[in-house]
């Protein structure tokens, strides 16, 4: 695999009790890219994320990061190898403070074991300081440093999503999987996030794969988009190519009926799909 590819996914599939949730999914994420993964509800997008991050083991195929094969490994091993994610349904450490959420993730990059911790060895003290320092900087970048001591579960929704991203970045990832990062945000917040996500690549040197339903955002910032429906990849290409692809339109809107009782001129203007 070439040195420029951060993540290589080859033909992964998984079936749950006879139902194939993901079929022959392949993708290559180059270094520093920003790719999108879209599809109608229930298409299997989050399942792909779960396959990549080790929550599920693929029935077939392989996933590689750099020289290492990561399919079949446990989630924490994959995270340490450099793949981080956010969750569609937000999974914060609710009772912990905003800062502690991030520090927990940053802490995986320390080397001190139990004894060094219990006896507060100089290495441990240095590492804890480093963890706190980096965590605060991350909160800064995501604009939530002022909430550092608040309990994370009491944060407003948009800030919770930012915290998830800060936490994922704390693990020093090479690949970042964002699962609906702007879901539920208002237009203003979405504008901010747009710029932020794009800047992450330079600031942190990560390759980003994004699941989103906000087509505007996806078409705007993603370099390449993969569309899946019922677990099958139905299109892959640049935003322009995807927008014009009939298979994609069909997947989202359905095939128009031959005998539509409402004449075209009388149909209501179609709503923006989100």
């Amino acid at each position: 695999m070439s040195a420029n590819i951060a993540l290589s996914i080859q033909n992964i599939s998984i079936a749950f009790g006879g139902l194939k949730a993901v079929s022959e999914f392949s993708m290559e994420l180059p270094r520093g890219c920003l790719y999108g993964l879209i599809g109608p509800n229930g298409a299997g997008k989050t399942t792909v994320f779960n396959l990549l991050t080790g929550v599920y083991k693929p029935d077939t195929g392989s996933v590689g990061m750099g020289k290492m094969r990561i399919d079949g490994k446990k989630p924490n091993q994959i995270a340490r190898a450099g793949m981080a994610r956010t969750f569609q349904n937000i999974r914060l450490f609710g009772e912990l403070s905003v800062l502690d959420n991030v520090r927990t993730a940053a802490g995986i990059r320390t080397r001190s074991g139990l004894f060094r911790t219990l006896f507060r060895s100089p290495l441990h003290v240095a590492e804890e300081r480093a963890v706190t320092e980096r965590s605060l900087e991350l909160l800064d970048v995501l604009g939530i440093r002022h909430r550092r001591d608040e309990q994370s579960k009491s944060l407003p929704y948009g800030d919770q999503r930012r915290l998830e991203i800060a936490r994922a970045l704390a693990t020093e990832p090479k690949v970042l999987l964002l699962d609906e990062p702007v879901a539920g945000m208002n237009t203003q917040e979405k504008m901010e996030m747009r710029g932020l996500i794009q800047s992450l690549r330079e600031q942190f040197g990560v390759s980003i794969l994004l699941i989103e339903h906000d087509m505007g955002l996806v078409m705007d910032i993603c370099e390449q988009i993969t569309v899946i429906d019922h677990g099958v990849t139905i299109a892959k290409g640049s935003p322009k190519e995807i927008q014009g692809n009939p298979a994609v339109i069909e997947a989202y809107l359905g095939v128009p009926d031959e005998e539509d009782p409402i004449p075209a001129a009388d149909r209501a203007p179609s709503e923006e799909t989100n």
Partner: protein
Amino acid sequence: MKSVQERVAALRPNPAVSIGQSIVPFVVAIALAFLIDKFVGPAIGATWAKILLDVGIAILLAGSLNVVNGYAGQFSIGHAGFMLVGGYAAAWLTFYGSVHWFGTKETYGGFLGDGQLLFVGGCILGGIIAALLGVLVGLPSLRLRGDYLAIVTLGFGEIVRVLGQITDRQPKNMKVIKEQTMGELANNLGGAEGFSQIPGYTTLFFVYVMAFVLLVLAYRLKYSSKGRELLAVRENEIAAEAMGVDTTRAKVVAFVFSAFFAGVGGSLYAHQLGALDPKELGFMKSIDLVIIVVIGGMGSITGIVLGATILVVLPEVFRSFADYRMIVYALALVMVMILRPQGIMGVQELWETSLWRKLLGKFRGAAK
């Protein structure tokens, strides 16, 4: 942005200062324990001194359980099993060892004399054996879901009790004891009658040294990356895994840590009571400890101290209502779960609560 490891070199503390800060709390602990033993104990009279000692042991036991149940949010209800194992190991060493090496069954030597050193060795041995057992039990079972883990730890506690009851009888005749090696005597732990005539080495000093040491270590653990891993496991195990935390390993380490201190606690318990009865250290004892952790506050160190104090002192004060003690506990448990499930303190320490900050603010305001 710089990685964590890239920053470490620049943030290293002055080694002398760091080592000093590391050791000072332990020195203070030993000094405080000494003061309690030599001054507070005699000052409050024998009855209250015993209560104080019981509180200390309860703090040690509940504090260690807190690391597993409170920090990591796991449901272990077999803590008494570790106490029993630790107690047996320590008693084996001090009782048979005393006969072999000091020629007596009584306590031997003065402060920090041979006898007490043997006792300290026994406590540590008890802790180590309990910790090893913790690895054995924890590794396979900490993968299980909460309610299943509860049953397995319960079962483990019962298995230890049963095994204790089928050990060989304890010879009390010194001549008979001397004829056998320590190794041969390893299974003579008293069987169903229990192990008795254990020399009474436990004093306020030893109890509070161990209790304070545990409190210091528990505090340091909580406010560290390793501790946050445990709290994360409790909050959202799936997210913790996704963030790189080896959740099984974290849980096992917590389990082994707590088992060690339970073993030490068991040893202190045995050498205070003078006897070790497997039936006494079964399910009910484990539940007693769980009650302290739940009511005091799952995850709060100050909560544990509070809980241990209340739950040891109250029954002594209301002795005449002994019949109703467990009923009151039971109702308290149900009420707490319905009305304030996080316990009195929750996961916060006393100094983190808003009440404390308010009082502190008023105090500072008044001082001006």
